[in-house]
Every structure is written in C-alpha cells, then in structure tokens.
C-alpha cells in the first residue's frame, strides 16, 4: 500500500480528528491513500462513518499501543 499523506491527529478530541481528516483528504487525489493516526476512541467508529458519508474506502484499520491507524482511499 502506497501512502500519499499522513495525518497525525493524536491527542485531539472530537470533532478535530474528523475536521482534520476532511482537510487532509482534500489535499490528495482520487485513488490515493491517506494515513490517519488518532487517539480519540470515538474515532474508531467516527472515521469509518465519515468515510462512508463521503464515499471513501477505509482499506485498513488497526490499533497499536492505544493509537488507531486508518488507511483511507479517496473516492
């Protein structure tokens, strides 16, 4: 998987991870992958819901040492 851009949103509370993810995805092109790192536990469901609302695909999601990683392919 080729990552075009990484967004570090660790330590931020709702709604910041979503707002920053939105801004970051606006900066990449269709088909490219955005990596998002968050510690807000609400993001576990929020980021996939956000991706769904915009038609983007979460191609991978994992948790490592309390950090959530999302890999989102832009529609």
């Amino acid at each position, binding site marked *: 998987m080729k990552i075009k851009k990484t967004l570090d949103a660790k330590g931020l509370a709702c*709604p910041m991870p979503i*707002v920053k*993810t939105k801004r970051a995805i606006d900066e990449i092109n269709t088909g490219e992958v955005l990596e998002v790192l968050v510690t807000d536990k609400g993001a576990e469901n929020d980021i996939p819901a956000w991706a769904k609302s*915009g038609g983007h695909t979460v191609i991978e999601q994992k948790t490592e040492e309390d950090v959530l990683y999302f890999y989102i392919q832009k529609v």
Partner: protein
Amino acid sequence: MSKKVAIIAANGGMFDAYKVFNIATAAAASDKEVQIFFTFEGLNLIHKQAMHGLEMPAGKEHFAEGFEKANVPAIPQLVEMAQELGVTFIACQMTMDVMGLTKEDFIDGIEVGGAVTFLEYAKDAAPTLTF
C-alpha cells in the same frame, strides 16, 4: 439522502455551544451544507464578547478540568472552523430587536434573518436539530 443539516441554537451556555458547533463542524466536514439559526440565548454563541465567556451550568464548573484534559478546542476556535468549513450562521432578527442588538455585536460573516428564512432552508434538510 439530504445533503443539508439544519440546526437551531436556542441556548447560550458553554455546553450548548459544544453541542451546536461539534455537530455543525462534523456535518460540514462530511460534505453537508449546514445552517445554524441562533435565537434567544443562542445568540450568545456568536456574540463578539459573550462567546469568549460562556458559562457552564451551575454546579458543573468542575468539568473545566475535564475539557482541558480531553484537549477539547475552545469555542471561538470551533466557531472559526465552522465558518471556514462553510457553515452559515443566521441570527434571529426578532430576538436581536428584543435584546437591542445589531449585526455589529456579532462576529463577522453572519447573516440576519427571520423564522421563515430558516424554515425555507430546513424544509428539505435532514436532520434538523435543536439545542
């Protein structure tokens, strides 16, 4: 599916502000068109001075520490973000007249309108939320 979210902000405390602006910014970041109608105490949330000193409910002041610990953005920061994301703010004309307020008492970039302005926008919005 509607791409519009309509929000009525009718209360003026700090918790009310978070409810309104968190939902508004999240919706706008999800490519929704968002309009907020500020009425009665809700006008506090966009008032140039009042928005910097919104109060917590009586007896809940101890949550201040929790807000800081959770790294929750300050209200003026959320307001700015909402505007950057294209959220439209409408101040209720009637309430402004009652309270003796003018457009200059509010942050830049707001619109002033009446109930029908909001209803016309909200007629095909989903969801419509009231805080």
